[in-house]
């Protein structure tokens, strides 16, 4: 079972009633599993508009007394943080579990922030599973803890926990209550200043109780390997896996304190561990959170234990660990001699294979048209989605990218201080998620840029989840599709056009017209994601073009200015691979000498 699947399973066994998410790697499968089974399991599940709304919806349900699960990727918690931090003050009635899936090494993210800080920032209990079995056990336990403490609980995974498959022993699924009665208690749940001041004190009290629970938690256990009295390792999450494998591989004797319930720090347990060891290495990925807490504890208790971690350079603060990194740190910390391992180097000059826009991807057609319309002089504000891949040659249609929705906001600033056209690209799902306030701001202040909403009718990058514009939702929901053009018009945009990116000429002309407008102009480039179109067989179909080699002038436009995985240029001859070709027909419009002929 995948770590994420184990989390979903545990939520069902915990009798969860409500589950919400906004899709994001590496958290997506938690929601995807629940979306599929929601109807049969009798739970309510939704892909919310964004993580903030997902969290707020679940707060409404949980404060009424049912159990709720919210899952998101690490950066999603930034969006949800405003709700989460004050929710720690009011606390909850039904169990409330927030799963954050962090992404050390940025496998599919714009940063590698360490969301354990949110547990510290908000003052919330934190559980850190290290494998699928623990994902299952800790999620179940998180609901119990949450109800016992009446606090939301954070379960934090990483890519190497969420996306690991391993055996999981499961139990029985329990049906949660669907209906509850919200008991009014404004002195707790309405956080006006007078209430908030009191609730902060209540939270600090609960944290003391939480620490007591962490002291005796079954997830905080010491493993004695051999009979070492001197050496200790304190570790958590994926770091614990590398530590255990390293200790085994080195064949050394050491005590390993693995913390699964790591915030609040069980200071008696950790203090006793420090007292009984001379040298302690702290093994944790990303930020030195445990390490700093352990050092502070040692200082408070005037302990002489030598503590080794990131601050002395034994372990790196950036990127994910592997066994080789941890093994080297263990050798250094405990003075163990061993062979140095050479990090493998991929030979240079090898043809690269980065992720690319698919054959038939409407975004590729849009980017080709944009390049044709404005050349290289425009500045492109991009956003989060498949279309970010436009950053690569030949399109180079991403110059600034920060976060979900940033294209619209940054485009205004770029346009204000630059005298060249500014084009913002945002996907349909991302527009709903975080693009709308930026658009209102641009209209209100008269910012001059072209916003292109790349509407492929789905949340493609994370696995084709529906969004508010979709006609079909998860199994449990009757949904209403929200119209992007109605929103755009409702924001006050005066110039709006809708184009089909497969029509290169019209798209090109419309972009030219759009950038010439005063104030903010909007083009919706609408065409279903080719992967969905192929899956549903509603795509452009089997009219696959071919290159007429006698007409072809070898000008390379189809490979140098357009990018399609189906078109190759080997030994100066261009060809279309019929298996890869999606039959979109865009290349027939791209070829200046009309050598790419439409299929029959």
């Amino acid at each position, binding site marked *: 079972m995948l770590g994420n699947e184990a989390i979903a399973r545990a939520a069902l066994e915990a009798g969860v009633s409500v589950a919400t998410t906004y899709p994001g790697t590496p958290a997506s499968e938690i929601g995807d599993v629940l979306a599929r089974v929601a109807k049969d399991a009798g739970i309510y599940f939704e892909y919310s508009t964004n993580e903030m709304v997902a969290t707020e919806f679940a707060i409404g349900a949980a404060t009424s007394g049912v159990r709720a699960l919210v899952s998101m990727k690490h950066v999603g918690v930034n969006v949800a943080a405003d709700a989460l931090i004050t929710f720690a003050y009011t606390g909850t009635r039904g169990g409330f579990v927030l799963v954050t899936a962090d992404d050390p090494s940025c496998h599919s993210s714009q940063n590698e922030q360490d969301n354990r800080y949110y547990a510290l920032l908000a003052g919330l209990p934190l559980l850190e599973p290290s494998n699928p079995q623990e994902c299952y056990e800790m999620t179940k336990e998180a609901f119990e803890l949450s109800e016992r403490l009446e606090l939301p609980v954070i379960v934090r995974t990483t890519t190497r926990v969420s996306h690991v*498959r391993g*055996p999981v022993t499961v139990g029985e699924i329990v049906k949660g209550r669907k209906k509850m009665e919200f008991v009014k208690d404004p002195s707790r749940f309405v956080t006006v200043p007078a209430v908030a001041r009191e609730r902060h004190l209540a939270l600090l009290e609960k944290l003391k109780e939480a620490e007591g629970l962490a002291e005796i938690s079954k997830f905080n256990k010491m493993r004695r390997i051999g009979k070492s009295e001197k050496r200790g390792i304190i570790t958590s999450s994926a770091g614990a896996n590398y530590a*255990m494998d390293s200790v085994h591989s080195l064949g050394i004797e050491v005590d390993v304190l693995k913390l699964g319930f790591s915030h609040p720090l069980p200071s008696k347990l950790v203090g006793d561990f420090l007292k009984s060891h001379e040298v302690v290495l702290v093994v944790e990925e990303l930020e030195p959170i445990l390490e700093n807490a352990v050092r502070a504890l040692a200082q408070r208790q005037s302990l002489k234990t030598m503590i080794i971690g990131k601050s002395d350079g034994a372990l790196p603060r950036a990127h994910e660990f592997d*066994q080789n990194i941890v093994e080297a740190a263990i050798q250094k910390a405990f003075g163990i001699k061993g062979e140095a391992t050479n990090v493998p180097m991929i030979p240079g000059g*090898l043809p690269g*294979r*980065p992720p690319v*826009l698919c054959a038939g991807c409407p975004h590729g057609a849009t980017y080709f048209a944009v390049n044709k319309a404005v050349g290289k002089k425009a500045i492109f504000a991009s956003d989060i989605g498949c279309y970010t891949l436009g950053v690569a*040659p030949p399109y180079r249609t991403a110059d600034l990218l920060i976060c979900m929705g940033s294209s619209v906001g940054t485009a205004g600033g770029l346009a204000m201080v630059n005298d060249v056209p500014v084009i913002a690209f945002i996907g349909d799902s991302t527009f709903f998620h975080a693009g709308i306030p930026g658009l209102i701001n641009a209209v209100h202040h008269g910012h001059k840029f072209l916003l292109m909403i790349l509407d492929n009718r789905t949340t493609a990058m*994370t696995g084709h989840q529906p969004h508010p514009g979709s006609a079909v939702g998860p199994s449990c929901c009757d949904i209403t599709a929200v119209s992007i053009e109605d929103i755009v018009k409702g924001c006050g945009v005066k110039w709006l056009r809708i184009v089909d990116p497969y029509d290169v000429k019209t798209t090109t002309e419309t972009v030219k017209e759009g950038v010439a407008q005063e104030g903010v102009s909007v083009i919706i480039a609408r065409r279903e994601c080719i992967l969905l179109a192929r899956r549903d067989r509603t795509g452009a179909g089997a009219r696959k073009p071919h290159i007429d080699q006698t007409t072809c002038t070898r000008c390379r436009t189809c490979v140098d200015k357009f990018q399609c995985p189906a078109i190759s240029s080997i030994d100066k001859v261009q060809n279309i691979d019929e298996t890869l070709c999606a039959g979109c027909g865009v290349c027939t419009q791209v070829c200046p000498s009309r050598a790419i002929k439409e299929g029959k």
Partner: protein
Amino acid sequence: MPDIYLVGVGGQGIITASKIIGDAALLAGKNVLLSETHGMAQRGGSVVCTARIGDVHSPLIPVGKVDVILSFELLETVRAACNASKRTVVISSMERIVPLSVSSQKLKYPTLEEVRATAMQSAMDFVAIDAVKLAEEESVKMSTNVVMVGALAGTGITGLQRDHFEKAIKMNIQSKQEENLAAFGKGFGETAKA
């Protein structure tokens, strides 16, 4: 405790292959950990999965510990070869999926002999499998991944029995099960010692 490093291109069925290996190990009563690539790393990009059979904690294979590189694509075999050591058997499909960089940057795609030579600089053995042909012979063109799992099973390195793999294939592939089992058999025959 064999450690298997699976590489290829997004869309080749590598995750399914790793799940078959995982289920075969569980059927044999062994612990197994699989890791896989998602999201941004897909979309036709290079894909790496790992399968570790035995009592390990981390899904990532340490340097020098790879027992098998199971590659679904020739160029990816070269990219993965730096993870090989003297204990490593490289089993590579002869399938070529030419990346866009060959066209756009006018780079050269290596030949089978170049791939073999690169792999053998560090590996113990190199086996090339014509997975596309073998899958087509059983009229399951899309099942090159099953052929490759067969080739892995045939080496015996995993320590798992043939019927564990066959049961695992039935668990993971619903359509054309008989043909897929035959495709598995074809791959198995390529590496199994007579």
